[in-house]
């Protein structure tokens, strides 16, 4: 029930927000805030008052609910929340609020439609993290794509049309692979059990052998890996991130990327254990390559948002590495990296957005020595850069450390190369700090009277910073939530991969 209410709150909230623009241009953001707050409260109440239902399959589902939808094809509104979903839902709603904070003063045109798209994107993500019917899953997968396309295309920066189209094409083409894979699964279920089904639990029973398993697995992999993204399929991301408005970048980096990782953990590996097992060395090699390659490309960027975008790809390499290690350390590491990177990258994009709105440039060559002028903003930038470097005591470290620890057990060579990414992360992060924060003050003249952080900004950064400290100092509260789910997923594949 909670899932439907959540999705409905966001869908309806979005519609009302759009309509309310007719009354007053300030209404939509208030409506959006309300509907996100309602969702947040619902989710918090739910997570504090519930726990895994022992009777559910695997014993780890907090809720599992199903309503009939298109019975002829075995399509149902099957949704479930387990620890893994719950953590990601919390992240989604939290970053939704942050994105709202980022948009609060920035978005001035077609306000109603903007908040409509924002809320519908979030609704799509909530759906993706909860749908257990693959048809429904794919539906939400598309729902989160189109509003995000519009956000980039309408409210983006100078090169938005190109970026939005690129984002759309990549996601759409890779989505096609995903769709084909899903349909083949359903068809195979028909062949083997004489009825169509998109049910996650039904599909686990399909007997898949040999190359067929590999091909279908690859379909899922391409769909999810483009979203993550992995090295090689990443080139949509720097454009999309750098052209999107701040709120869009926050959601893209913080949440949308994680849907790819979620898909891999939930579907791509457990449904195709043998194929994933033999594929794991390829995936881990790609992961290590991506970590190093994108860190190097990040270092060369002059556009600060592009730089952060490339570091995102680099960090997602640790997620990929952890997932394909497929032991509890690696998986927990992947989940922690998702959560921590969600906060740190969102904060960094918001900081970059803050610089853009203050100085109307993202070019690091024009921004220098801001510490003297904007001490609070600079201190925040320092904090989140340090988090991104993987400083122990903050969440990112826990994620990366566990990922590497797990990965080392299955593929030491790839892990050693991936670990070198820790050095490169220091290289590019410190370079940004040096360029933008340190040195002598230099900003475009016409904007030299920019103000330091506003109250909304302080609130957003403080919350994200506290979150990272919490994850770094007491990660157990997160690890406990996801553990049962991850053990269940591992059991599906017989521990292989």
């Amino acid at each position: 029930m909670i899932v439907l209410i959540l999705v409905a709150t966001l869908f309806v909230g979005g519609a009302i927000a759009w309509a309310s623009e007719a009354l007053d241009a300030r209404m939509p953001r208030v409506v959006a805030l309300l509907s996100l707050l309602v969702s947040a409260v619902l989710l918090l109440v739910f997570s504090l008052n519930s726990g895994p239902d022992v009777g559910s399959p695997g014993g780890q589902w907090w809720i599992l609910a199903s309503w009939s939808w298109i019975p002829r094809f075995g399509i149902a509104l099957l949704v479930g929340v387990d620890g893994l979903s719950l953590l990601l839902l919390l992240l989604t709603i939290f970053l939704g609020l942050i994105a709202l904070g980022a948009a609060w003063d920035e978005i001035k045109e077609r306000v109603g439609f903007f908040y409509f798209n924002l809320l519908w994107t979030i609704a799509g993500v909530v759906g993706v993290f909860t749908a257990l019917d693959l048809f429904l899953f794919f539906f939400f997968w598309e729902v989160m794509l189109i509003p995000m396309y519009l956000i980039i295309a309408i409210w983006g920066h100078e090169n938005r049309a190109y970026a939005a189209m690129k984002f759309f094409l990549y996601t759409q083409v890779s989505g096609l692979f995903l769709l084909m894979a899903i349909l083949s699964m359903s068809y195979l279920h028909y062949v083997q059990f004489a009825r169509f089904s998109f049910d996650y639990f039904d599909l686990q029973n399909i007997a898949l052998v040999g190359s067929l398993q590999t091909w279908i697995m690859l379909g899922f992999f391409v769909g999810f890996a483009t979203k993550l993204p992995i090295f090689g399929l990443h080139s949509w991301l720097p454009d999309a991130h750098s052209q999107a408005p701040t709120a869009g970048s926050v959601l893209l980096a913080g949440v949308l990327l994680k849907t790819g990782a979620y898909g891999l953990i939930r579907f791509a590996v457990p449904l195709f254990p043998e194929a994933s097992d033999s594929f794991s060395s390829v995936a881990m090699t790609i992961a290590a390559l991506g970590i190093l390659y994108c860190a190097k490309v990040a270092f060369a960027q002059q556009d600060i948002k592009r730089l952060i975008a490339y570091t995102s790809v680099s960090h997602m390499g640790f997620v990929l590495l952890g997932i394909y290690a497929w032991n509890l350390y690696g998986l927990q590491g992947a989940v922690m990296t998702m959560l921590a990177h969600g906060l740190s990258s969102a904060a960094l994009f918001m900081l970059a957005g803050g610089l853009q709105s203050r100085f109307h440039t993202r070019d690091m060559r024009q921004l220098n020595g801001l510490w003297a002028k904007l001490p609070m903003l600079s201190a925040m930038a320092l904090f989140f850069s340090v988090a991104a470097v993987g400083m122990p005591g903050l969440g990112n470290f826990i994620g990366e450390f566990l990922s590497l620890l797990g990965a080392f057990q299955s593929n030491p060579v790839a892990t050693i190369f991936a670990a070198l990414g820790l050095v490169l992360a220091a290289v590019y992060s410190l370079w940004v700090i040096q360029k933008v924060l340190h040195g002598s003050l230099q900003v475009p003249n016409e904007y030299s009277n920019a103000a330091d952080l506003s109250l909304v900004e302080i609130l957003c950064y403080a919350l994200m910073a506290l979150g990272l400290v919490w994850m770094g100092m007491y990660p157990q509260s997160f690890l406990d939530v996801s553990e049962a789910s991850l053990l269940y997923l591992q059991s599906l594949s017989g521990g292989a991969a």
Partner: protein
Amino acid sequence: MQNWIGLLPAFPLAGFLLLVLSRGRMTKTVAGIIGAGSVGLSFLLAVMISIEFLNSGAQPFSKTLWMWMQVGGLDTGFTFFLDGLTLVMILIISGVGFLIHLYSTGFMADDPGFARFFSYMNLFVASMLVLVLADNLILLYLGWEGVGLCSYLLIGFWYDNPANGYAARKAFVVTRVGDTSMAIGLFLLFSQLGTLNIQEILLLAPTQWSTGSAVAVAASALLLGGAVGKSAQLPLQTWLPDAMAGPTPISALIHAATMVTAGVYLIARTHILFELAPSVQLIVAFVGLATLLMAGFTALMQRDIKRILAYSTISQIGYMFLALGVGAWSAAVFHLLTHAFFKALLFLAAGTVILSLHHEHDIFKMGAMRRRLPVSFWCFIVGSAALTALPFTSGFYSKDAILLAALDHPSYGMLLWVGGVLGAFMTALYSFRLVFVVFFGKSHYEQRDTQQHDDHGAVVENTSPAMFFPLLILAILSLFGGLISVPVDAVFANGALHEEAHASQFLHALMILIPILGVMISWLLYGSLSYEKAGAHLRKQLLVSPLGGLLNRFWFSGWGMDKLYQTLLVQPFLALAQVNRKDIVDLVFNSLSYVARFANSALVLTQTGNMRWYAISLVAGLVIVIGLGVWR
């Protein structure tokens, strides 16, 4: 008291938080009280804990503050472990740390970033305490990275100058190379032993690994990688001389007394792993030897007062590595202790000199400061005597122990000993070169900035109590610290300290005399009354000769290591990054769109509207298709 052990790092951490949250609005008095006071509280607590620890039979104990992460077989707490080794370390960190904080309240008094300075310093002390208190390697790694971060922040403290930023980045990145090696070592240890708890590792490793086995070698070599990075040993020593860009108290605390000895601590802490890998342990000894000689020669050529001390630090840590390499664990820790005293003293005294001379660093622009800076002078005399290991100073006892232990090494004893003694000679030469050039001879000091106010222009030594008291204490400790016995024998029970000197009377006497000889030669070259004439002439002769000039340049540049790394690593990376700024993967995908557009424009050409062409292509197509069918 032992239950309060968690407060040790908590005091400075609280100080850090208070100072950060005040956002520079605190008065300097309050900031100074919080900054220095929090470390003072830690020191008091450390003393009380020590008294209780030593009175209760020196039983190691551990205390879990909270569960950190528990994943599968990985069971890690915020757990502190205290034994004799840790005890020595926490006393050094909080004690010397407090003195340096106190000194800084005077030294930094005019700096606009006063509160920021103390916040970073407090965070450093907290991290360093966590590093030595950690009962598991992940928590140790937390402290390890934390001190690295603070070191970075403090080297680049005066951020206006990009050169400082460069030095700071260099320090962080170079040490991170070592840190990454250490992290990989952690992964290896965990995958082999299933735990990262240090005591469990030390118990398990000897039962599962045979001496000299590949795993033991790999694990200890990876840990050694971390240690050489942090402790600025070959081949990762290049960052430390540049780290002198930070305010001088930082150099005293972080880059001399505490952080840079973390590598020594790490190896001592995990000494059983190194005993299981004799080849790696031998490498430790030779790394130490090579480093102490290299840094000794380099120090002799430097002109910058802080760089001389920096190379001297590298060299002295080389002695500690030498001690670790020959299994003289206690001697290494002992030298760590005495070095913390006299090197902190030297740096703080250098700070006073620099402050009094308006940030002049070049020793050849000083001279004859004996009367004008009496306090600094006497501190330098005491500190240099201890550094040179003149008899009955603290450095004498610790260096003596190291050299005797080196001589006892079964296969390379003589070689290590001769190298170590040669290093001691160099130490005497460069330390007293500094003393003689700065404090004797003629004054070469000129006011660089003549526009300053008169009261700023004169050479006035700052002897405020906040700065004088730490110098006094450190001077006393440098003289008499050798009488302290470090309570670490129980920690290294199986690797006993050098029990009795096997050195002959002759060798022992030689060891004592050679530093004194060094001081005398130094006097001839730099200190004698004829220094301005004969000494200068002699030095010129040495420098003008082709070999002398070459060596001068070579040694001055720190043996060209910077240049080497620049050419081999930095330049290629920059070039590669530059070339691929646009991301070649993106170009590959974009080429798809070019292909599509090209195909489009090519096909557009066929749309001529000319009926005959259409008919011909229809017929041609038909013929080809039929032809293909027939062919088959």
